[in-house]
Structure formats: C-alpha cells, structure tokens
C-alpha cells in the first residue's frame, strides 16, 4: 500500500507493548481500542493485528494487492476509486485502486484495518508506533506515516475469500448490525464517561466526588497520546498532600493536578507518576476519551469494579461472536 496523503497524523498501531513498563517503556498502541478491535474483526484479523490510526484525516493510499479493508471510529466518508462505502463494513479494495478516507466532524480517530500482515521490526511483541520514545512503527523509529510511505503488505486471504466474506456480511447484515453497534464507540461531541474509584480516591472528600461527577469538562487542546487534559471548575485540593512517591500508572487513570483539574492518562503516559489519582476509567470510556477532540465535552459517572469487568467481558464476547459469524458460522447467531 502506497500512501499519498496522511491527514493530520497517521500511524501504525496495535494493542501496544506488553510487560516492559517496569523498564520505563510506555505502553503505546491504539487510542480507541474498541474501534481498533472492530476494524480488525471486520476483515477477519486477530483483534490485535496492526492497523492504521488516522487522526482527523484526509487519508489516501494506492493499493498494491487485493485487500479486504474496513474503516471504523470517527465519522468519515470512505471511497474506493470514487465509489462510496460505509464505515464499519468489510470493503473489497482491488490491486491498483485508490482508497480515500475523509474525516467529517465527530470523533477524532479512524482505524483502517487490512487483511494482510505487515513486515516491520518488533519491540515487546508489538509493532506499534511510539511517538514519545521515537521507536516502533513502520520504520522502527517512531515516525508517523508520510506521503512517501510504502507498506510492505503480505495478504492473508485470497480474493475469493474476500468476496465470500463480503457475501456473508451482506446476507446476515441484520443480525450482524447489533453486534457491531455494541462493539463500537459512537463518535460524539459529548461523552458520559464511567470510572471506578481507585488509587488515592480516599484522599478526596465526598464533596470533591460530588463536584467531579456533576460538572461538564471541556477537552483541552493541550492533549495528546500521553494524556488528555480537561477544564472545568477546579476541585478544592488544599487538603490534599501532593508529596506522593511516584507509582505505577494504569491506562485511564484520572490524575488530579495541583490546580484541581484532571488529566486522563492515555496510551503513551509515563510509566510512573506522583500526582494523586481519584479513579480510573473503564475500558469503554478510555476508548471514548480517545475519540475526543479539543472543545468536545465529557462528564463523569461513577461505576463499580464488577460492572466495569462485566462490560469488558461482554464486549469481547460480542467481538468473538461477530468474528465467528463473519467467518460463515451461522450457528453462532442462533446462540446469541
């Protein structure tokens, strides 16, 4: 695949690095895992296969082999040789055709998955691009994709299998639709985010929680793959001890800064940090955060550990059923 336009930022991503944070390497990986997993599932890949994350894009590429592709995530128009296609569907893109993805408003990141493996160096079982550490990705040096990038793709399935999969999708579209709907994060300008209380939540007063959960936060333009900064009326932090020892930080941890405003720790966060944390987002809410653009708004709702885990397991169940149905296993539909 030869890239001819990248949009604001297009990078090769996967699930992220594994078991290296104790050495100071960040996790990195797809910012909206829900859309990333769905894109891979739609083309018959394992959910963790590398895909392209396109930030508010006008992404254009010329195909160098027959591929089954799919685009998920942010609202966008998709064209293959000027023929229009819907997002969240498997699309046949033939050798030599032009693929165009144009962002049109809601959501920040689109995911382009393809039925091919890609040859790059690996670090900690991952091919993901890490912008903050200058490693990983297509060239192994953390560079984003550019207009001259050529992706060395090895197709995983034959053209006949591509056509068969699209047939299966069309035949069962009615049954498949609810599975897709429950597997994706819908692009919006305002999200309600769920969190579980975690870490230093006991340092915060009941009033802090009430305020935290009852105001609308605006996403700051000073946000990136390391963290998302939010603005609203600050929490009162006078009673909080900020002299904490640095400790391991989880994905989605909600750090309260000395100015009383939250920063959500995202894929390229530092591995350890010493600001107090009031809680941690659920996996679905982390994906929603990954779709937020500056000036979008969010509000927080507290949930419990069991609901968060339940939501995670149900989401993965939906993806597994979807993968099985798309393969042509109709029995799966009856069991749902």
């Amino acid at each position: 695949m030869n890239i001819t336009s990248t949009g604001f930022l297009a990078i090769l991503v996967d699930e992220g690095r594994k078991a290296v944070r104790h050495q100071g390497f960040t996790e990195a990986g797809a910012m909206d895992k829900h859309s990333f997993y769905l894109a891979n599932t739609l083309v018959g890949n394992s959910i963790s296969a590398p895909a392209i994350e396109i930030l508010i894009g006008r992404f254009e590429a010329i195909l160098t082999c027959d591929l089954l592709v799919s685009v998920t995530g942010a609202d966008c128009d998709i064209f293959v040789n000027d023929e229009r296609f819907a997002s969240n569907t498997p699309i046949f893109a033939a050798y030599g055709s032009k693929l165009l993805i144009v962002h049109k408003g809601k959501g920040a990141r689109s995911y382009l998955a393809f039925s091919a493996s890609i040859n790059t160096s690996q670090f900690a079982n991952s091919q993901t691009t890490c912008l903050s550490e200058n490693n990983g990705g297509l060239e192994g040096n953390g560079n984003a994709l550019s207009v001259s990038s050529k992706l060395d793709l090895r197709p995983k399935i034959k053209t006949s299998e591509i056509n068969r999969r699209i047939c299966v999708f069309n035949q069962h579209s009615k049954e498949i639709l609810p599975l897709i709907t429950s597997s994706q994060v819908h692009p919006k300008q305002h999200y309600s985010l769920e969190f579980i209380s975690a870490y230093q939540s006991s340092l915060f007063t009941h009033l802090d929680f009430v305020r935290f959960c009852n105001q609308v936060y605006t996403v700051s333009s000073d946000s990136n793959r390391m963290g998302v900064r939010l603005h609203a009326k600050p929490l009162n932090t006078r009673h909080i001890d900020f002299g904490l020892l640095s400790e391991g930080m989880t994905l989605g941890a909600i750090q309260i800064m000395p100015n009383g405003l939250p920063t959500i720790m995202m894929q390229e966060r530092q591995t350890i940090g010493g600001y107090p944390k009031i809680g941690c987002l659920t996996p679905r809410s982390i994906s929603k955060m990954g779709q937020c653009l500056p000036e979008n708004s969010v509000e927080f709702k507290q949930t419990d550990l069991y609901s968060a885990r339940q939501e995670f397991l149900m989401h993965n169940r939906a993806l597994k059923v979807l993968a099985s149905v798309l393969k042509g296993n109709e029995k799966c539909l009856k069991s749902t």
Partner: protein
Amino acid sequence: MKSTLNQWMQAYEISHFEVASFNGLIFYFKGTDLNTKSTNVSRFYETIQSHCALWVTELVPSYASCLVEYDAFASDHHQVLAKLTEMPNTIPDHSLNDRLVNQPSVHRIPVWYCVTQAQNDLGLVATEKNLSVDEIIKLHTKKEYKVYAVGFQPGFAYLGELAAELSMPRLAKPRVKVPRGAVAIADKQTAVYPNSSPGGWHILGLCPLDLRQKATAINAFKVGDSVRFEAIDAAQYEAILSSQNESKIG
C-alpha cells in the same frame, strides 16, 4: 496451610492495597525509611516475577509500591488476591540464567565529571554547597546507590540516597535539553539521562555508556539493583564512547 490475607500482607510488609484499574491492583509497603520500603517492594516484585504466573500481565515496582495488572479473562480482583496469598513466598530454584535475570545486580557506571564542559552545574553546586569540585566527585562516587524506581523515560533509574551534603533542589529554570548520558542530581536523588530530554536536575558529568540500549538488555536497571559511579577522565570517556560505536558497527 493457606495463609489469610492479613498474614500474607504481614509477611510481605504490605501496609495496604488499592484498586488501580478494572484489571489492576496496587500494593503499598511498610518501612521506617525509603530504603526499607524499597527492599520490601523488591522482595514482593522478585517473588511474583520468579513464579512466572501467566495471569500477571504487568508488574510495575516503584519507590514504595508495586502495581500488578492481570489478564482480565483469566481472573478478577478476588481471585488475584487469592492466587497471590497462595503463592509461596520463596523464590524458586531456577537455572543459573534465570538467577542472573532475577537477582539484584550491581551496575558500575563510569562518569566523566566534566569540569571543562560548559553544560554542567559543577561550579554552581560547588558555590551553593561550599565544596570543591574534588569533594563533590568524592561525595558522589563514595556511596552505593539503590534503584528506587525506573521511569520518566526508558532506562531512567531514580537512584538514592544522595549524601546530604550534595542535596540540591531542582533548577529554578529547567533546561530545554539535557544531553544524553548526563549524570545529574536533584533533592536526595541522582540519575543518568539515557536520552536527551528537557530536565531540571543539576548536571555533574557525562556517562559514555549507551543506556538506551541497556534499557532493553538483560542487565537493564531494575528496582532493587545497586549502582556505583566511577570517575573517569576525558580521554577514557572518549575511548569508551568510540569503542561502543565500533561495537555497534561490527
């Protein structure tokens, strides 16, 4: 006999633990000082790591805590606690190779305390602390430091504790660019910058070793390890630097 959660916490000197995410728990350790807390963290971290439990996906030890993330398909918080309490608190007898990986090691880090280089704060520290440059070098190389945490950037080890005579607050105005290999101090800590980055620590010298490469190597800094600094001169610094470049080409 299975130990209860309380007994288990006592055995590991765990003061308390908290939820850290839907698939993570963070354990905090007791200790009268940072050194004792850090020793307890290391013992916990090394024991879990040595059992190679497949349900553990990430272990992040730090100053006085250890974050444990687990495979959410395999376990939940209750089961993880049960599994941890059932885990023998001894490190299993591994092959020699595994021992090398798991046991704390001593790292010897050569430092050129670059009196001649413009980009260091030796002079500033000397004036502020009323010490000669030689005394600073002596104080900095005299102690064996302990790795309290690894983070900030890959392979960046927070080492403690610095001699009280050298303890300085961070620079009022952080440097936009701290050179790669800079050996620096802040408060009661010292560290080597594996990579060039912005930073607010006072720089004392330069280390010629490529700590970026070391970060992924088998002898990477890990919490609980010991570090000694050894003073070298400009010629030795250049020699190590060029020998490293050669070995990379070869």
